[in-house]
């Protein structure tokens, strides 16, 4: 299942646990999704902006959520479904 690229703004509820922040639930369009696992978190730079990418999943879906620390904006940038 090849993943699809997106660049959609999303609303995210996060959990602060053990000194780290992890996405917990997010709203994409009219649907709410619950993140079961955060598989990898990586950072990168876009200009002076530090961007964090959270590779998340539940049992049937994969999502890549991107948080821009400059604009404080969350976007869904990639997704795949079983």
């Amino acid at each position: 299942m090849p993943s699809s690229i997106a660049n959609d703004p999303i609303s995210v509820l996060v959990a602060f646990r053990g000194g780290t922040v992890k996405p917990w639930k997010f709203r994409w369009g009219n649907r709410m999704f619950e993140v079961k696992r955060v598989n990898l978190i990586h950072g990168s730079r876009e200009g002076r902006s530090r961007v964090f990418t959270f590779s998340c999943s539940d049992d049937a879906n994969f999502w890549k959520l991107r948080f821009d620390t400059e604009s404080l904006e969350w976007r869904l940038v990639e997704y795949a479904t079983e």
Partner: protein
Amino acid sequence: MNRVIFHIDMNSYFASVAQQMNPLLRGKPIGVGGKPGTRGIIAAASREAKKRGVKTAMSAYEALRLCPELIIVDGDMDAVVETTNRFLDIFRRYTDEVEVFSVDEAFLDVTDWHERYGGPVKMARMIKADMRRELGECITASIGIAENKLLAKLASDLQKPDGIVVLSKSSSSTGLFVRIGLSDPGVRFETFDEITKTLPLTELCGIAERLRIRLERIGITTIEELGRAPVGALIDEFGPVAGTKLHLMGNGEDPSPVISVVDSPKSFGHSYTMPADVTDREILRKTLFALAEKVARRMRREGFSGRHIGVYVRYYDFSGTGEGMMRKNFTDDGLEIFRAAWKLARPLVGTRPARLLGVHVSEISHRGQIPLFPADRRRVALIDAADEVNDRYGERTVEPLVTLGMILKRHVSGFHHALPVSVKRK
């Protein structure tokens, strides 16, 4: 005292990072890179794909022919680089002597440190446990333990994935085996004398196909034969430096240290394989300009300028040619690098289809003084201003009109110097 060296080699690295990110890819044959229908190559294959015969550097067409279910994914280089920096951080918690050998492998000199962890094997297990906890279950490594880098690298190749192999020079040597003990479940113990009876020469790090052919010409076809060959005969054939090194390699010896601090760069360069063979000079000119801009930007970021400009063209039939010239003055200006490079490249292109273009700058010096003439000062101010905008808002926010819209796809490369992997510099 004998040294204790680890070679830690990540298994199917780019594919493992992709599987770590996306659990839907786990247990499936995947290939990173090489879009179907293009001439791209598979830069890395997952274990499942390797079992089906897919190999690194195989064309996407060939890989899909062997394994029609192969899922081809784009590599996320930011995730790969971050994962590399994280495993290097783990290694540096155990020893300060870590040599970054490529984006997915490193040498560690643990001679002075392994005893505090209960010996080399226990230390290797602790590193693996840290990696699993901090990087995820898909990111595994094979660890070779030996008394030098040559043997450690050979050892890590002997058990993949996720192995620990201790390789001693010989069963009679008083080195590693005595200190480690010969029975440790889950760990493979081998001796160089034994394995070299069956392993081909190219298993030794530093012997590639061309060297193998030269060795074969003088009657050496196995590692064992290389070890038995008189050092004088090797020196006669390969010269004093390479001949002596080959003699040592054949006997499982390698005095080279683990180099944890690297020298300043000696050159800067970029090359690009075009999506299709090109004869159109205008496309090649624009591509060269974009490459020159990339080289110059990297030089300025690292505070260097250079005065030897070189170009390389690889043609459709994989033959290639290059030219170089020495400038009077040092430069870090993409336009100046391009002008010199195009002067060199122009006679080389346009008649035969080219598949790859490269430009490099050597004779490097730290960035020089502010120019004397007002026109040159204005040019430097313009470049500095453009750099500031690009630093602030991201690469190519401001760029020359001629390269506007040109996309040079980022390489999926194993070379750590091509990626922002954390290395210590002098």
